[in-house]
Each structure stands twice: as structure tokens, then as C-alpha cells.
């Protein structure tokens, strides 16, 4: 385990590497008005709850950063076209930005985060052949994970009432929109068949969809079916710091699955997504 830190040195003796990091961590569009935020205007309990959720987000973004970095190195072994490398260079920068924003948000709330990272948990997927691993990771982390994440952050942007939270979530939404487009394009390109090996790998991936759906449902606080999620308030009462209620996260999961994930997986050649999702909903209802 190690504690995730934001900066290597103090602002007084800033390092060259820190300056480069901060350039990457700036939003691609717009500006975040950190200094306008006044934490004293909010109840301590609200600030505690918001900081806890932003700290958890930092850990999830760090996991994405580790996964996409590993994936990029594998693309180079597989002979992917160079524009894939360029797109992934941006993906890595985006995840660095998101992790930084989450930790900085906690600092702005007056509750510095020190989330712990377990290196053993940084790999989501089992190791298979490099090509099978890349395809599996793209489908899991992008077509499913980033698509759900996009839905979640767009909702969070809509409900955020605290101006600083709107700025931070808005910066993340800009990146998530690109991640969704990239993920589906890569997923489709990786589903091109080149023989029997592909057929075996496709079947293995199709058989794993039910497990992947359950994994992301768990990350999204899903504890019951879509009827429950859509019947509860999407946000908790009080000032909103860009976060949703448990039912709100679950609703983002179900909406994303039904609007984008399942139809998209079917379109790229994984029709098994439909029965896998139906089975999950049946289990939960």
C-alpha cells in the first residue's frame, strides 16, 4: 500500500517535473476558479461527505491511469497504428488530470485526502494473450467503464450547485466525452476477425461480460434493480458538490447500460451482452 500524493515538493521549491505536471493537469477547456471557493459557507458535515466521495473518486481515477498506461505499452507490442498511440497519450494525460483534480478538490474542501493505493489491485483483468488482454481491457474499461463514467459525470454536472464543483466536474466531462468516442472506435476496430484465435478470444470475452457487468454495477452502488434506482432521489439534500446519491449512481449505471453499453456491444459483435444484462437485472429485481 502507498499513499497517493499530489505533489513531490512544496510550492516554495517547486520542481521542474511539478511544473510540467501542472500544465498537464490544467483543464483542456475553461478554467477552475479555485480561489473563489469559500469552504466556510458550508456545513462541516456537507464538506466531510463531499470530501469522502471525491477521495474515493481519486482512487478510481488512479486505477484508470494505471490500467491505461499498461494498455498503451501493450499497443506498442501489437503493431497498432501510430494514431492509437497519440490517442492513448491523451488518455493518460486525462487520467492524470482527473486524479489531480479529485485530490485538489478535497484540499479545497479543507479536508486533504490521503487515499491509499494497493498496487496489487491496480490490475483489473487477468492476463491472457497480449491481443486478448488489450481487447478485453478496451471493452471493459472503455466501452463499459468510461461509458458509464460519462453518464455519471454528466448527471453530476447537471446537479452540482457549488460553483467550484461545477468547474471541476465540467473539466472532467470534457475528457469523458472523448474517452467514450475513443473507446467505442477502438472496441469496434479490435473486433475485426483474423481467424480461429480471434473466435476463441471473442468467446472468452463474451463469456466474461456477465462478470464485468457485475463488477461495474458494484462500483456504481447498485444494490437493487432499475425500478429502485429510478424511484429514489438522484441526489442527497443540501448543497451539491458534484456527487449523486447511491441510487443516483445506480441509475447512471442502468441508464448507461441500456442506452449505450448493451446496444454498443451488440453492434461490435458481442450479442451475448443482451442476455448477460437481462440476467443481471433479473438477479437484482
Amino acid at each position, binding site marked *: 500500500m502507498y499513499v497517493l500524493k499530489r505533489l513531490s515538493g512544496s510550492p516554495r521549491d517547486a520542481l521542474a517535473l511539478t511544473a510540467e505536471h501542472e500544465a498537464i493537469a490544467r483543464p483542456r477547456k475553461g478554467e477552475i476558479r479555485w480561489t473563489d471557493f469559500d469552504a466556510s459557507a458550508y456545513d462541516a458535515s456537507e464538506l466531510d461527505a463531499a470530501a469522502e466521495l471525491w477521495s474515493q473518486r481519486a482512487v478510481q481515477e488512479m486505477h484508470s491511469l494505471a490500467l491505461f498506461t499498461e494498455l498503451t505499452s501493450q499497443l506498442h507490442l501489437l*503493431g497498432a497504428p501510430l494514431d492509437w498511440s497519440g490517442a492513448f497519450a491523451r488518455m493518460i494525460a486525462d487520467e492524470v488530470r482527473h486524479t489531480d483534480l479529485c485530490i485538489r478538490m478535497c484540499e479545497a474542501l479543507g479536508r486533504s485526502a490521503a487515499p491509499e493505493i494497493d498496487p496489487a489491485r491496480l490490475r483489473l483483468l487477468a492476463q491472457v494473450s497480449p*491481443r486478448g488482454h488489450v481487447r478485453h481491457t478496451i471493452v471493459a474499461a472503455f466501452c463499459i467503464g468510461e461509458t458509464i463514467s460519462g453518464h455519471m459525470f454528466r448527471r453530476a454536472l447537471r446537479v452540482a450547485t457549488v460553483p467550484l464543483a461545477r468547474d471541476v466536474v465540467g473539466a472532467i466531462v470534457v475528457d469523458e466525452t472523448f474517452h467514450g468516442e475513443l473507446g*467505442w*472506435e477502438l472496441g469496434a476496430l479490435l473486433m475485426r476477425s483474423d481467424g480461429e484465435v480471434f473466435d476463441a478470444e471473442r468467446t472468452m470475452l463474451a463469456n466474461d461480460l456477465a462478470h464485468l457487468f457485475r463488477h461495474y454495477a458494484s462500483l456504481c452502488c447498485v444494490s437493487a434493480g432499475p425500478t429502485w434506482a429510478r424511484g429514489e432521489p438522484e441526489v442527497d439534500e443540501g448543497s451539491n458538490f458534484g456527487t449523486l446519491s447511491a441510487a443516483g449512481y445506480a441509475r447512471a449505471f442502468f441508464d448507461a447500460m441500456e442506452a449505450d453499453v448493451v446496444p454498443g456491444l451488440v*453492434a461490435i459483435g458481442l450479442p451475448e451482452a443482451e442476455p448477460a444484462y437481462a440476467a443481471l437485472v433479473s438477479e437484482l429485481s
Partner: protein
Amino acid sequence: MRNHRLGRLALLTQGAALVGLGMTQLACGKDATPPTEPSHVNSPPMPRPEVDVAPPGPSAPPDLPPTTNAPPMNASDAGAGPGIGRPTMNAPPKKLPPAPSAKP
């Protein structure tokens, strides 16, 4: 997801594979041309074959390190023996076998 986007995704799944086995075969097939450029200045050092065997006999080949694109050591090795496949572009170089006359 809208229908036209789903249709576009379905179209993207058609065509030649862009990564993986197909690319590797193209790069390592018998018609592939090995690159002639020297290693990049940032390349990691190439592992060299161990030299702690007895000196080679007079009929041994010159002690040249293999390249990453080196063909199998003997033409008859090419995919013939159990578990012996063609080396991929990124396969580590094979360890050179000792010359037949190296040991009694």
C-alpha cells in the same frame, strides 16, 4: 446510442485486423524484410549470449550476436519441433548453442 452510430460501429468491425496476430505474421513472415537500421540510441542494451562455455572449436561459426529479427538458427528448426515457433519481432534473441566441438 443512436442507430447511425451503432451502424458505424458495426461497419468498423469489418476489414483486416489492425493489431495482433495478423500484424505479427506480416512482420515476421518469410517475405518480410528485416530492418537494416542500427538500434535507436535509447534502445535498451541487447542481451548477449553467454560466453562462459569452452572456447569454440575451429569449425564454429563467428561469435556474432543475433538480431531481434534473426531467423531460426537452422532452416529445419522453422516451426518443426514441438514448441518451437517463429520468433516474433519482439522475441528475445535465442541463446546460441555451443559449437559441437566445444565439449568432449
